[in-house]
């Protein structure tokens, strides 16, 4: 199971805003796919997955604030459950 998370990339770890989900729960995803778009205090950023599998539940709604470091969804390998 891969956790897709908001990376803490700046010196200060502020919340980000989840702008858009590009994949839905149950979708088959491939490594490198953009799962969601987030907005930091400086820019917008794509969050990609590193493995292929089935996307789990959206853990945050569009336009909600997400703390840096938090998992927004998981990618499940065959047979895995959330």
């Amino acid at each position: 199971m891969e956790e897709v998370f908001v990376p803490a990339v700046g010196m200060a770890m502020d919340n980000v805003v989840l702008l858009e989900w590009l994949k839905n729960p149950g979708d088959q995803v491939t490594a490198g796919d953009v799962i969601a778009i987030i907005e930091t205090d400086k820019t917008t950023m794509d969050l990609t997955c590193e493995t292929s599998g089935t996307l789990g539940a959206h853990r945050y709604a569009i336009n909600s604030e997400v703390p840096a470091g938090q998992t927004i969804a998981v990618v499940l390998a065959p047979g895995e459950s959330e």
Partner: protein
Amino acid sequence: MTTDSKWGKETLRQMLLIRNFEETADKLTLRGKVPGGMHNSSGQEAVAVGVMSALDPKDVIATTHRSHHHTIAKGMPVNIVMAELFTKATGCSGGRGASMHLADVENGHFGGNGIVGAGVGIAMGAAVGIKQMGHKKVAVGFVGDGGVNTGRTWEAVNMAVIYKLPLIIIVDNNQYAVETFVERVTGGNDIAKRGAGFGLPSFTIDGQDVEEVHKYTLEARNRALAGEGPTFINALTYRYYGHNVGEKGQYRTQEEIADWRSHRDPIDRFSAKLISEGALTQADYEAMINSVAKEIEEAVDFAEKSPLPDVSTILDGVDSGLLGASK
């Protein structure tokens, strides 16, 4: 030359420990566990371990913003380093400094710092003290390829030469000053030649060969102890990750990184040499990798479980005590 088996194994283990520490800390930083950013030294292990293995524990070092590898090689336990990255009270700087301010003055570690090119000046100051007090030890100042384009570095080199100070200057030359390739910003494009212009022995060496780094440092240390003054060493190395964790890194190609990793990796090279010489078995090597991983796991656990500094201690260490703020 055949490597001494005991030294070789300890040296290899140190490099593995640093590599695992950095790769682990990188992931934890992305997860928001390391406030204030962090600079990953993965790829540069041989410079740190080669230098430190040639020093005496009482020798002094002063380093840079990228200092985890120097600090671990200098002998600071990894749990204390990790706790400082987490800004926990059990860290070497009491959780005040995080990644960039690792220090242990009593054990000769005069600190990392966030000022480009500051390390050589700090070490030079220590070398003045060593000479004045007549101690039989040396100081080592680390600087990066960006820092060699700062005036303060060369002021310190010059002073070390004219006073014949027991100083070793190590350029931990990972070839990129943040996003800028060294050749684009280095007039004359020969850092060792620039050093030689100040009138001291000056060398460019293979910083991915831990034994070469060790040998040159040992010779420099012997010269310094003999009263012959400082030595300048430009060690060519490479960092595998971005300048800071989370950097996008669009200023160099993935092929370039892969080439350094696959052909010149200091750990792969040295482990292969030890195995081919019979100083290390494949089973020993795997056991070593596992034991290092366990040590880092324990360090993360220690850092996670350690408390943050108590807020009532916030003024501790702020002044010398004269103003009454510090205890």
